[in-house]
């Protein structure tokens, strides 16, 4: 597994869908935050993050995702995660990310929940 995390984003109406590939650490978290803030500035009202190609998240990555979540909440937008490994799912729940961000099994479930247009 690469130590660098690749992040790609696609806009579906006012929902931004993120796909991560790799370790969400400081570098990976910063990549996600940069793209997330950019999408929020462009008026996204929901961010859906598909982490199915991510196997590891460390505490720095989590703290950055919490910052992103705080920013999302300030903007009255929503954040949803999907494709989490059981380990990352549990990590998000323990670290409090799941308190304000929804977690879905699949991307289609997440998109449906946030009301993304096709």
């Amino acid at each position, binding site marked *: 597994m690469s130590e660098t995390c690749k992040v790609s984003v696609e806009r579906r109406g006012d929902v931004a869908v993120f796909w991560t590939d790799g370790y969400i*650490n400081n570098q990976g978290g910063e990549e996600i935050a940069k793209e997330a803030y950019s999408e929020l500035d462009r008026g996204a009202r929901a961010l859906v993050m598909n982490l199915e190609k991510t196997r590891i998240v*460390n505490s720095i990555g989590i703290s950055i995702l919490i910052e992103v979540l705080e920013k999302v909440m300030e903007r009255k937008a929503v954040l949803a995660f999907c494709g989490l490994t059981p380990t990352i799912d549990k990590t998000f729940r323990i*670290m409090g990310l799941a308190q304000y961000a929804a977690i879905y099994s699949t991307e289609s479930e997440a998109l449906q929940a946030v009301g993304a247009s096709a």
Partner: protein
Amino acid sequence: MPISPTRSGAVSEATLRGPGVFDELAKTFAILRRETEKPLPARIAEAALVVAGARRAAVYLRDGDRWLLGFDSGKDGAPIELPESFPASAIVHAGFLWVPLDAEGETHGCLALEGLGHEEPEELAAALGLIFGSVLAASRLSRLVKDAEFEIKARLLELESLYDLGLSLSGQLDISALADEVLYRSISLTDARKGTLIVFGERGAGPLARSVGGDLLPPQAIWSWDLPEGEVAINNDAAHVPTAGVRLSDCQKCLAVSIAVPGRRLGVLAVADKESRDGRVLDFTPGDARLLSLFANQAAAAIETTRLHREAIEKERIERELELAAAIQRQLLPRELPHIPGVELAGSTLPTRQVGGDYFDWFPLSGGRLGFVVADVSGKGIPAALLVSTVHAAIHLQIDASETIVDLVSRIDRHLQRFSPAHKFLTLFFGLLEPAADLLRYVSAGHNPALLARRGGAIDRLSATGVPLGLLPHGSWREETVELGRGDLLCVYTDGFTEATNSDEEEFGLERLEQGVRSRLVLPAREISDALYGEVAAFAAGIPQYDDQTLLIVRREA
């Protein structure tokens, strides 16, 4: 230059009672609460500009011994000239009013204001210092609480991870998946940028290696790894020097531990370059070392369990195959006694393992004749059983085509020379009984002397008439003929019978066998056979035997 003898932070009663002070406070807090997306220093500066009527406001933040510029409303203008040191009380310096932002006896920052529109700067300074100092203190406290909460959750996550890993590994029998699980959690919970886990290969296989962020050490390096069991190597100063005898590649700081069970190392777990939020590489802590050790212990237990489980499965598979082989071998033995008037037969074999290297068989032939054979293959277990199978097939295929016993034995020998591995041979006694003529023809290919017991009790030992089969490229055998009349008995056996030992390592021996035969000459063949087996078992008295025991009795009724 101090602006007032009034101690900074002490707001006079006149100020608090003064007209409009609540309006000013309300205005200040409204700005602070507005646009919370902006950083706090920017909002403090903005509130200060409004309340103090200043042209420019800058906020400096204290971080331990360091001072950082948090926000400057005139950042595009001329740089602000800093005082020699940040003041403990309000001063005027280079056209700016410098106000320390204190709370709870601690300075949290400093506010610099230019072009004040306020008539009473010292009172203003005290009020701003009090308000903004408290705001910064509250913000700092909030951050500390948040950090503490995060830390507590992170510790909880560690405990949960150890618990989950234990559960997960207890059901994990795929070492590759197991290695991934341990490595991912180790990297994640130590905040390392990279990590490598290597497990020694089994049965000559190369080591199994898993890495995130590149190999910290090449798989082959595991052979040089010399970290004692239970110790953790922390290398925070110079990861370029060898760690536990191995030079780790491309990292600044590392932490490594052996994966081991008592007395045996199974692998290595190493992580490197602990991250911080600001991008620095931090030292690994004793807590990190403890955590990695716990992961390594769990990995060791799981790897060992997996290995033992695999061995158990393999053993079970071999057992099943041996049982099948034994069933096949049992099919090679004669199932029915041939009916030849005046002749009794009894044959049986007792392998020491599931499958054996002994073989007996009989063949009713034309003219009321009876062929019979006892063979003993060198070696034991599956290889010997395979050779037995070969001999069985060869005899059954060649017996009708053979003119004489020597011809048959020669054909079997040629077959073995051609198709069996070197150093594999067998001894064989082949007899051909002609009851009508009271004759026994036989060839003994290196076999133990068969016992020919006469009705009167005399016993002849029928010695070998040639070499064992499959041993020499050009062996030769001689056919002998002896009388086997009414009341006579022939006993053919393998050496496992006479070489059965007791607890004193004494052998049963040929004399005891002869005596056992002689004393039972009048009994039916089956009873003689059973009695002789019973005698050998009583002699051995439960001591495990290392060779198969086979006995064939051919008895002429009197």
